[in-house]
């Protein structure tokens, strides 16, 4: 950065550098949340009424999702955890 004429803008430059981008895959996964929710809705309703299904989800979430034909993306896993923990 030494060739840049700062002209009193050092603090602004420091603040720009303070927010590097998050990894692209993380952002893309978080943006999938509405689709993840749509794919989970039916399963979560059933899990509220079916204690065996709920137990399977709590025991091994990724495997149980796969058995139900739902891809265990980070967004799906995070949403499912939130609902199962409450």
């Amino acid at each position: 950065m030494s060739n840049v004429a700062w002209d009193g803008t050092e603090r602004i430059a420091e603040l720009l550098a303070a927010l590097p981008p998050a990894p692209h895959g993380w952002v893309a996964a978080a943006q999938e949340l509405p689709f993840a929710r749509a794919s989970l809705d039916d399963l979560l309703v059933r899990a509220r009424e079916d204690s065996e299904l709920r137990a399977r989800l709590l025991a091994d979430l990724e495997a149980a999702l796969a058995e139900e034909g739902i891809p265990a993306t980070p967004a799906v896993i995070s949403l499912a955890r939130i609902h199962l923990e409450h």
Partner: protein
Amino acid sequence: MAVHQTAESALDAKLVARCRAGDASAWNELVERYSRYVYAICVQGFRLSEHDAEDVFQDVFAKAYEQLPKLRDDHALRPWLAQLTRRTCIDSLRAGRREQPAEGGEPEDLDETLGLLDEALTVRDALAELDEPCREILDRFFARDESYRTIGEALELPQGTIASRISRCLVKLRAALEDFGAADRPVNG
């Protein structure tokens, strides 16, 4: 949660309203707008490992997605997300301490770092007001830490002109910050 209304909080309120109305692109914009902030709180504020930071990052946005309809003040999106991230990071550290009791703990300079990140987000909002060439060159050089050579190749610019362009764009950004109502904030100090 009442917050002082600023240009940024007005922008947030519109975004939240669009999310509530089911506008599919609004959620993408919200994630795009806050992904750097949440990421920085995890890795700079709490110094989480990349692995733990990824888990926290996904948890924060999942909680935000679920709880957004219950947000009481649409202008308070930023402090609400910051608090959500902070609590989720603390939960992650506590879980880590259960496994390795010697590790973890909230960093002593956390509040200072979070204050810096808040200011940084305001600067990014002002950056969004600039023309695309300035936005891109400033983001590549400062936030992405790209070299003159990489920037020159990506933007098809002679390396010798990059420093002067960065300087000019920084001056534009400073002016945008003043227009943005941030003239009384400590960005110049």
